[in-house]
């Protein structure tokens, strides 16, 4: 890639309610960025619909071709989580398809640069709105030379932040806890400024008490009265990032060597990630709960976790038992207070006089800037643990230990990866730790993880042995897809490419053209990040799924915020893998975004925050590769999945869609023409399975465990209600059945009887099946359709499949059961719909957005 033909940098940010776009020319000679254009637009909560059209318009106005962009820079936040992800996902798509590097810059630094550019000098503080009465406060020193940041990103209650900022400068610290911590932060801030060559500014600041700080940030809109005593407010347009500020932040990073606009490997778009500064609420609440030593046995199921007098309190309680073991039988869970004693015990055994007491460990657990993880073997014995402390953008590893018998199983590495992942979400950028000089195997492990030795602490340990201080970057886990397991399918036989040298460029071109149209589809509607490519014959040449289930299992259900975070981590790895697999099948050395015919994505229905990631990424890639963009309804994908099993399937047909989010009967009059005949009034079938499984202490997901247990039980043992069976219409209701099961369990427990879980599972499942089959039969009779098929995860239930077989045989209707892998969420089915829409030229504009709910009956 020639540097001279790619001289522009495109920067944008949507972390706040503003879309900021900057376009600058790059001069490698003095590493400078000269402004070509800077625009700021009110987003009105529609960044995803506005961002790309605005970028496109700006390039046109400036007469700059998108292929003249050498580098993309994106604001990483902190700000609104969804806002940051819109910018980041778009940037990843644009950067991947343009094949140029992507770098993240701090949104708050960009605001500070905007102030600096506007002539503000001396003390400045940026307070960005973090919602829920919290703000992200960061203090800066602004000089003619640039900006010096005085502290790392953190999230603080607005009133607390205001009080501390008003209390003095810079002696008033915004550290969250304790005097010792605050002092440490202060010292670090000064060191950081020293390193940046800004000693003078800091010294001035310490002495120049008369200077009134300038305050900026969108938190001022909401909390003007709180922050009024903290200084003079900057002009309102400077409260949010500007295109100019983003470019200046990028230029500074270039000069510091943190980014290189011409190094595509250094700026791999997979590595750019948002700044969050806090875990998801589910994880935070888990931390609070685990740090309390509640006297309950988490292993005994019903009486402790499922049924409580207060039904409100049950939702997250199965977290612990839902954690799933890895291939070595090791389970990783956040450390809880109940195991603090075991940690202390192992400490004494392994750490000698440097051991921590139980009280010390217990004191750690509830702290918001600490992360502790533990590893357990198949017998639930503690075999390892690790803890980290996030201080000023760095996680300091406090402890890493593995029992001697279990060393070399990768436990320490896995524990560190989990700590690193949480620490990154809490704002850490690097990791440091101390290790005994004599512990060479540990040092080798850390070096393998990218750590370098940066110094010694003489006589650090109580036996006076020296410690080596090592430091490394985050994240530590170099997985392509955010630590998820990747499943790869492909219909087509791999092409014979054994004669590699013969694969000339012209030959590649021919092979690609011979397979066209090639449509790549992305699916991120729930907890699976998936991508697939369909060729012109309707074969899936690549079908890749990364399932996040391990990350959600311990919460007993999908946590939307975690799902969105995992999608943005995995999206590049999944699409890269998808392109590579397709290249192999087609028989070309490489398949590029520009070789495709269109980019498609699931735009609805689903978790809106999760959908947004896929939609923004797909739009970015389609725009950058000059390809048509196709939006697909997820439910239509489930209907099309039946084409995989029965290619000659022809409408009219009746489809039963049953999953964790849907329970409906759809009359397919023709492909693309759907009538919803009935759907659930309350819970979906999959949801009912999950909730009943949770109540029985069976873990998550509920479908497979209940169906397995039901196979051993008596389906007629308990007469659970068949809701709506005689309602005379095709509507469903599952909420009453779920309540009936829970009430039954509670009553049996109260009566002191032992519940036969297999009977409960079988009876519950039968109640679901009876209604599903009866309504399906009614739908078939009403429509006269001669084809019946299934879609959605619940379609994998063997008993339900068997019951449908019997019913269809009786009615003389052909039954299509999609393969198990096509029942759950995948991108292959989305690609099949997209191919039809591509041929019909039914494209979406770049202003398309994700939608949580859509009616499948409405053509789109």
């Amino acid at each position, binding site marked *: 890639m020639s540097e001279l033909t790619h001289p522009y940098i495109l920067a944008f940010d949507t972390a706040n309610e503003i879309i900021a776009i900057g376009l600058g020319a790059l001069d490698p000679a003095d590493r400078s960025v000269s402004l070509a254009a800077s625009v700021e637009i009110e987003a*009105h909560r529609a960044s995803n619909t506005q961002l790309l059209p605005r970028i496109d318009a700006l390039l046109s106005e400036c007469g700059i071709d998108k292929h003249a962009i050498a580098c993309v820079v994106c604001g990483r936040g902190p700000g609104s989580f969804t806002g940051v992800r819109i910018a980041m996902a778009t940037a990843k798509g644009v950067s991947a398809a343009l094949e140029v590097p992507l770098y993240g810059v701090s949104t708050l630094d960009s605001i500070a640069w905007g102030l600096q550019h506007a002539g503000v000098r001396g003390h400045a503080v940026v307070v960005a709105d973090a*919602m829920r009465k919290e703000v992200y406060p960061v203090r800066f020193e602004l000089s003619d030379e640039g900006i010096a940041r005085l502290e790392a990103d953190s999230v603080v209650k*607005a009133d607390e932040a205001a009080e501390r900022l008003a209390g003095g400068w810079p002696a008033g610290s915004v550290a969250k806890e304790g005097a010792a911590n605050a002092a440490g932060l202060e010292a670090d801030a000064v060191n950081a400024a020293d390193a940046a060559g800004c000693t003078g500014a800091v010294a001035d600041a310490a002495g120049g008490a008369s200077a009134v700080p300038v305050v900026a940030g969108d938190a001022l809109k909401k909390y003007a*009265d709180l922050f009024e005593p903290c200084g003079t407010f900057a002009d309102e347009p400077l409260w949010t990032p500007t295109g100019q500020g983003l470019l200046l932040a990028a230029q500074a990073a270039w000069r510091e060597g943190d980014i290189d606009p011409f190094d595509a490997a250094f700026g791999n778009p997979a590595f750019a990630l948002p700044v969050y500064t806090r875990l998801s*609420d589910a994880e*935070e609440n888990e931390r609070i709960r685990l740090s309390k030593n509640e006297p309950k046995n988490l292993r005994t199921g019903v009486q402790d976790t499922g049924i409580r007098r207060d039904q*409100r309190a049950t*939702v*997250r309680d199965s977290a612990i038992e839902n954690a799933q073991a890895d291939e070595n039988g090791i389970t990783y869970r956040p450390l809880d207070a109940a195991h603090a004693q075991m940690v202390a015990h192992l400490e004494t055994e392994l750490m000698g006089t440097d051991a921590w007491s139980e009280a010390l460990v217990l004191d750690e657990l509830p702290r918001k800037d600490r992360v502790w993880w533990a590893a357990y073997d198949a017998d639930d014995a503690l075999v390892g643990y690790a803890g980290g402390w996030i201080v000023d953008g760095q996680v300091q590893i406090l402890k890493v230990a593995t029992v001697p018998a279990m060393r070399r199983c990768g436990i320490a590495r896995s524990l560190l990866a989990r700590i690193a992942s949480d620490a990154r979400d809490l704002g850490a950028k690097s990791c440091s730790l101390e290790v005994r000089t004599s512990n060479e195997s540990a040092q080798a492990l850390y070096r393998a993880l990218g750590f370098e030795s940066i110094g010694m602490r003489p006589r650090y340990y109580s036996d006076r042995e020296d410690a080596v201080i090592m430091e490394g970057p985050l994240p530590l886990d170099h997985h392509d897809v955010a630590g998820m397991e990747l499943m790869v399918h492909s219909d087509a036989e791999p092409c014979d490419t054994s004669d590699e040298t013969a694969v000339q460029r012209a030959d590649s071109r021919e092979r690609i053209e011979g397979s066209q149209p090639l449509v790549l589809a992305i699916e991120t509607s729930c907890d699976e990040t998936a991508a697939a490519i369909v060729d012109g014959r309707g074969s899936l040449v690549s079908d890749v799924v990364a399932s996040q289930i391990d990350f959600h299992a311990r919460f007993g259900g999908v946590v939307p915020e975690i799902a969105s975070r995992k999608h943005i981590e995995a999206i590049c790895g999944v699409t890269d893998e998808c392109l590579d697999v397709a290249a192999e099948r087609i028989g070309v050395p490489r398949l590029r975004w520009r070789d495709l015919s269109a980019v498609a994505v699931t735009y609805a229905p689903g978790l809106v*925050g999760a959908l947004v990631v896929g939609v923004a990424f797909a739009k970015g890639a389609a725009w950058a590769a000059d390809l048509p963009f196709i939006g697909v309804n997820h439910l239509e994908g489930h209907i099309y999945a039946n084409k995989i099993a029965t290619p000659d399937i022809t409408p009219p047909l009746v489809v039963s869609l049953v999953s964790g989010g849907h329970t409906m009967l759809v009359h397919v009059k023709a492909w693309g023409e759907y009538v919803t005949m009935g759907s659930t009034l309350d819970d979906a079938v999959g949801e009912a399975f999950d909730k009943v499984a949770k109540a029985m202490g069976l873990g998550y997901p509920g479908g497979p465990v209940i169906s397995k247990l039901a196979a051993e039980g008596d389906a007629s043992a308990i007469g659970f209600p068949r809701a709506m069976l005689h309602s005379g219409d095709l509507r469903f209701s599952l909420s009453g059945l779920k309540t009936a099961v829970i009430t039954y369990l509670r009553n049996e427990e109260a009566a002191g009887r032992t519940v036969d879980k297999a009977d409960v599972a079988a009876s519950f499942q039968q109640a679901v099946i009876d209604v599903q089959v009866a309504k399906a039969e009614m739908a078939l009779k009403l429509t006269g359709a001669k084809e019946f098929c299934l879609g959605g995860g619940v379609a994998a239930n063997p008993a339900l499949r068997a019951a449908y077989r019997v019913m269809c045989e009786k009615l003389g209707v052909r039954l299509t059961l999609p393969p198990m892998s096509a029942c759950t969420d995948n991108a292959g089915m989305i690609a099949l719909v997209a191919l039809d829409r591509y041929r019909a030229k039914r494209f979406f504009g770049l202003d398309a957005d994700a939608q949580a709910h859509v009616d499948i009956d409405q053509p789109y």
Partner: protein
Amino acid sequence: MANGLTYVRQTTSTEATKQLATTLAPYLRAGDVIVLNGDLGAGKTQFVQGVAAGLGIGGPVTSPTFNILLSYMDGNLPLFHFDLYRLDASDQLEDIGYYETVDGPGATFIEWGDKFPDALPYGYLQIDITVNENGIRIVQAHSFGERARNLLFVWAKDSKSRLVQTQ
């Protein structure tokens, strides 16, 4: 609570509650949060229906108990109506987009807001509807924070609201 205002009005029918609510509508601004408290059947949904009518919202306004959040975008100001009754834990607020909505482009009415007091903003208007033994509804409005104080003040000054200040 220090500088909070309290006003009260008795209504004898759900229609009167609606009419009272309608008079609040013109004074609402984006970002306003109104916490509605009252027993089942006290008339919380009717109150929101009245506000919706005042904002010129066309379609039917129903209870959000099942959906948790219902949004009405077709009026002079977006109207969001939460019922937090079905939520089990405060972390689910993140899942349903609660914080984005409360800080959002419209006025937000919240039922069962006292379930998650930490999730309420610094400032909001609290409306308590109680029913006495004669079926008379007592609608009491109390302001928390500067903006809610101003809102309640101008609303109460509107003679159609017939709100009476209490001590």
